[in-house]
């Protein structure tokens, strides 16, 4: 089991998103803040671009030696008293986690934010087996109440307005007095905190993701802004970390290199409010901490990306900057992308993990404006990788027939300059006749254009024809 893939319906999803007034309001509110906060944070750090270069080089080095670093990491987790479980796919990861929960007779598990657990569909898997997962990140808590999936890497409830959250809280928290005031975001936060506090104490198992895994110490690192990760992992009997394999870094210094980029790029903070390093289970003399510490290392298609055309995508540190700067994401939000990962990084990663047959719409749904690559902290050439997917689709004849024939028809002329000049000079004269007033309101075969815009009529004669006339006249 893993999250269902709805990416082939990007166009329909997008239309629905464009008609959703709440979503459009939420998107309009969030767009500017992310961009301005990142810009301000980056401007304050003169060596930002130099750190990006080191981070890129470091990731490339790690990916070239991923097996060695993973083995070193495993060895050091075990040395620190933890357990490592290797999961080839989502199903295996879910089974392993369920097995641990069952052995500990867990009724509820507290969860920190984890996109990998979204990838494996962990919540649904546990619920079907009688275990209640409780999301403890505020955004995740909100969308869990709403029965939704995250729409953004670091702001899972980006698509929801404050007014909608208030309504959700009033619907879900029926024990609280209905006349309470929830006008301010702080009162919503306080209410969520009070609700969650009890859940933390009741949870038998805490599950978190990992931003980084440190090979030299066997530690996992998470960053949060609410501190929920710390409570999730220290109060329960067992702490289970679920992470994908490419999160490993060699040393603590290396983790620091990425940490210097991550929060600045993601939210404009120098560092996230909480950066938590976890190494093994509770030791003798420790006042608290989990009795068991497990790491589930998920592959789920990533090792297939190594050494191939999409390896650079594995540099991603999940900051969300690419989607924060993407005009398409700003227009339709994250759910339109139809799987776990939205925006430009999702447009490359989704076909890599679920197959281009299912994910192929996403790398096409880009204007190639290049802003994602411009802001990526590890310099992933996202447009190039999206183009690689388009090439894969073209080679395998997966694109719609109309688009392919259209391209072939145009190419047949473009490859023959003499024919091209003859054909286009007739065609432009015809278009000019249709568009005598300068603008064409409706054009057969170009309804995609004229549905929303006029088509500016051509001048009539082509430049090459006119240039020839000028030369003769001289």
């Amino acid at each position, binding site marked *: 089991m893993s999250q269902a893939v709805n990416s082939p319906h990007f*166009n329909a999803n*997008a*239309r629905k998103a*464009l008609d959703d007034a709440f979503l459009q309001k939420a998107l309009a509110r969030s767009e500017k803040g992310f961009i301005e906060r990142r810009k301000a944070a980056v401007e304050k750090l003169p060596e930002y671009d130099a750190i990006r270069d080191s981070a890129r080089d470091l990731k490339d080095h790690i990916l070239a030696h991923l097996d060695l670093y993973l083995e070193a990491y495993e060895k050091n987790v075990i040395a620190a008293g933890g357990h490592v479980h290797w999961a080839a796919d989502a199903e295996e990861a879910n089974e392993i986690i369920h097995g641990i929960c069952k052995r500990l007779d867990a009724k509820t598990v507290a969860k920190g934010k984890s996109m990998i657990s979204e990838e494996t569909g962990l919540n649904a898997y546990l619920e079907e087996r009688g275990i209640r997962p409780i999301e403890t990140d505020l955004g995740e808590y909100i969308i869990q109440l709403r029965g939704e999936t995250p729409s953004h890497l670091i702001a899972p409830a980006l698509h929801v307005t404050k007014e909608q959250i208030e309504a959700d809280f009033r619907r879900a928290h029926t024990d609280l007095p209905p006349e309470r005031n929830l006008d301010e975001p702080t009162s919503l936060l306080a209410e969520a905190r009070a609700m969650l506090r009890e859940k933390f104490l009741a949870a038998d198992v805490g599950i978190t993701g990992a931003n980084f895994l440190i090979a030299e110490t066997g530690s996992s690192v998470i960053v949060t802004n609410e501190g929920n990760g710390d409570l999730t992992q220290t109060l329960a009997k067992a702490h289970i970390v679920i992470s994908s394999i490419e999160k490993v870094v060699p040393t603590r210094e290396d983790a620091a290199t990425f940490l210097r980029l991550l929060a600045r790029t993601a939210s404009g903070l120098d560092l996230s409010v909480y950066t938590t390093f976890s190494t093994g289970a509770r030791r003798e003399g420790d006042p608290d901490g989990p009795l068991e510490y497990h790491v589930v290392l998920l592959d789920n298609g990533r090792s297939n990306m190594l050494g191939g055309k999409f390896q650079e995508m594995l540099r991603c540190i999940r900051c969300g900057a690419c989607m924060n700067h993407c*005009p*398409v994401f*700003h*227009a*339709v939000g994250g759910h339109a992308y139809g799987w776990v990962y939205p925006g430009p990084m999702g447009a490359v990663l989704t076909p890599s993990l679920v197959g281009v047959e299912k994910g192929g719409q996403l790398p*096409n749904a*880009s*204007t*190639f*404006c*290049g*802003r994602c*690559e*411009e802001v990526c902290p590890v310099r992933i050439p996202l447009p190039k990788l999206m*183009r690689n*997917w*388009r*090439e*894969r689709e*073209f080679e395998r004849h997966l*694109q719609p027939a109309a*688009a392919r024939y259209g*391209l072939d028809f*145009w*190419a047949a*002329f*473009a*490859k*023959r300059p*003499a024919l*091209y*000049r003859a054909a*286009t000079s007739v*065609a*432009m004269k015809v278009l*000019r006749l249709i568009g005598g*007033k*300068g*603008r064409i309101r409706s054009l057969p075969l*170009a*309804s*995609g254009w004229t*549905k*929303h*815009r*006029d*088509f*500016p*009529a*051509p*001048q009539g*004669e082509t*430049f*090459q024809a*006119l*240039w020839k006339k000028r030369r003769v006249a001289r």
Partner: protein
Amino acid sequence: MPDQVPAVATKPLRVGLFATCLVDLMRPRVGFAAAKLLEDVGCVVEVPAQTCCGQPAFNSGDRSTARELAMQAIKAFEPYDYVVMPSGSCAGQVIVHYPELFEGDAAWLPRARALAAKTFELTVFLSDVLKAAPRARFEGSITYHDSCSGLRELGIKAQPRKLLAGVEGLSVVEMKDPDVCCGFGGTFCVKYPDVSNKIVGKKTGNIAASGASTLLAGDLGCLMNMAGKLSREGKEIRVRHIAEVLAGMGDEPAIGEPER
């Protein structure tokens, strides 16, 4: 990028004008404006038989057609001292992507690289290579849209503004987010018309809010997209390619206006 002024006085530079298919078909006056700007500073301008740089094929995943069209363009433009294109995105295709298309091809890679090295977008060529300061008059306020490929692949941002600063009677008012995509994206705008519409609607809102009476940019695709949307919205803002204004052709019919 060469920063010395080439020896224009002793031997005229032979410039191959790669008009781009959109200018060739839709708006020849951009080609004539570019030719005038180049001839005014002593270049000899030639227009060899040409079609398209191949970008639509390249971005649709059809690498073999893209290579074929690139070879055609390389052969056509090899004889010139410089190649100039009135489009940042088409120039980006030649400068950045032609060498990528021939990676590992011992015969064509050097030829692709050689063409890339002498190819320039028009405003970059005028401003950075020739250090030209075209003299023109244009009455009115303009706002300038930075087309994405030119901006991010070629770093075009200062050059058009520098050239416009020399135009008498013209004032530049910056719109909000001039460097954000207009939603054209080549075939994107017809494959995802509703998403594209949302993006261009934001753009035309910013253009109108600037209060400028004319919108300029350096790429005809983006210009046609924005002109088409402004026209559909009934906004009375004229839209032109920057070359037209720099060449003193700013009183001819704007994009989407009837020919006189």
